[in-house]
């Protein structure tokens, strides 16, 4: 057959596409479990990062089990949910999407509790939008459920050198010591302030130059996601006061 005839061209293209599709599908299925394990370990590393524990991926699982004593699932009313849902397995994106489909009251939120020297730290997963794609992270609150202990952020594809800077230590360590409630007990979250936050500002950190949309995304993400947990925190406080 003439290799330049239309028939052969079509035949060649079809066979080639099928062969490579099969090849790639097989590879994706075979390597899937390894990749899933990596994602899980990375999540553990990120959670540990928010309480200032740096870990290599090899030891992440061990450290995670050592530090994170309790994993809590709370619903939007602030009640603990105990029917077999693992906090670690909750996909925050799916839970947030529930609000769009009218299932807002069925939302479940994971909370990780870190216990050190009889004081508790609450690690809240946060998720929002950057400029190019999702941004997410973990913010750890001290036992008073007000003071930020630490934070770690990550992103899918923010601009390197600009928005992507949110996962650097310089940006993350600014959050330590900030407060999410003001003096009157009103929830104000922590804002990322363009042009730099005043040093005495308890609710603001410096934004990233050139990364305004990502910075605003961080502000929005913190305000919205931390708010999900307020009912639960209130209920703990009430119990503590009784």
């Amino acid at each position, binding site marked *: 057959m003439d290799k330049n005839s239309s028939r052969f061209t079509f035949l060649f*293209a079809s066979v080639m596409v099928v062969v*490579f599709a099969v090849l790639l599908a097989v590879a994706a299925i075979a390597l899937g479990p390894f990749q899933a394990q990596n994602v899980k370990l990375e999540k553990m590393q990120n959670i540990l990062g928010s309480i200032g524990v740096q870990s290599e991926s090899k030891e992440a699982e061990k450290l995670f089990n050592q530090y994170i004593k309790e994993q809590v699932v709370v619903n939007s009313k602030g009640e603990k949910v105990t029917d077999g849902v693992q906090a670690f397995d909750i996909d925050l994106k799916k839970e947030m999407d529930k609000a769009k489909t009218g299932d807002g009251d069925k939302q479940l939120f994971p909370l990780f509790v870190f216990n050190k020297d009889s004081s508790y730290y609450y690690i809240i997963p946060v998720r929002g939008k950057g400029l190019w794609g999702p941004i997410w992270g973990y913010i750890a609150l001290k036992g008073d459920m007000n003071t930020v202990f630490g934070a770690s952020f990550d992103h899918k594809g923010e601009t390197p050198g600009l928005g992507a800077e949110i996962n650097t230590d310089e940006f993350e360590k600014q959050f330590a010591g900030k407060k999410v409630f003001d003096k009157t007990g009103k929830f104000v979250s922590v804002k990322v302030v363009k042009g730099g936050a005043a040093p005495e500002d308890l609710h603001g950190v410096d934004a990233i130059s050139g990364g305004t949309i990502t910075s605003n995304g961080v502000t929005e993400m913190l305000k919205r996601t931390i708010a999900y947990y307020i009912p639960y925190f209130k209920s703990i406080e009430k119990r503590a006061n009784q």
Partner: protein
Amino acid sequence: MSTEATIQSPVVKKQKESLLSPHNKKLLSDPLNDSNPITVQVLGICSALAVTVQMKPSIVMALSVMVVTGFSNLMISAIRNIIPDRIRIIVQLVIVASIVILVDQVLKAFVYDVSKQLSVFVGLIITNCIVMGRLEAFAMGNKPWPSFLDGIGNGLGYGLILVIVSAIRELFGSGRLMGFQVVPDFFYERGYFNNGIAILPPMALIIVGILIWIQRSRNTKLIEPE
């Protein structure tokens, strides 16, 4: 991509030659110096700027490019006589893209942290001019084995420059090599600072420029007649 077709016209020898004959060895060694893809052909510069902040990702990137150039050359060369002319670029793209996706998946499964650092640049090997350039200029007109060597050689030539540039940038930018600190604390205490520009992309361009300068001044073949 088009400029290099003139640099190396495909040479096909009739008689059977050994696997590593002088001619074949030249295919491997030429891209290291005389026809280096980065410093002589000036291809693949974008990724060379982006991934050379540290040595580890550079080495992984170099190996990835080597696998892609080698195997895409091999496969295209093996089927070069049945590829319909009209869709030859598409066929090349499909093969290159598939190999790149495979490499990316393997990296994600086994060296996840490096794969995150390289992020989009592994995917962008598809558009790396070296790959398509070698397919068009060499693999379409040569037998599989020499094509494979040519691919590996060009990957090596690319990798060599990447490793040199990243070693210089990591040493001056972070005081480390392969992630291990080499500049002693003593220096820092005496007021030594890491060079901030070394970790930014412009420094890669400057170093590549200096490498081209050094290479041209030493390699007489590259000196253009006045």
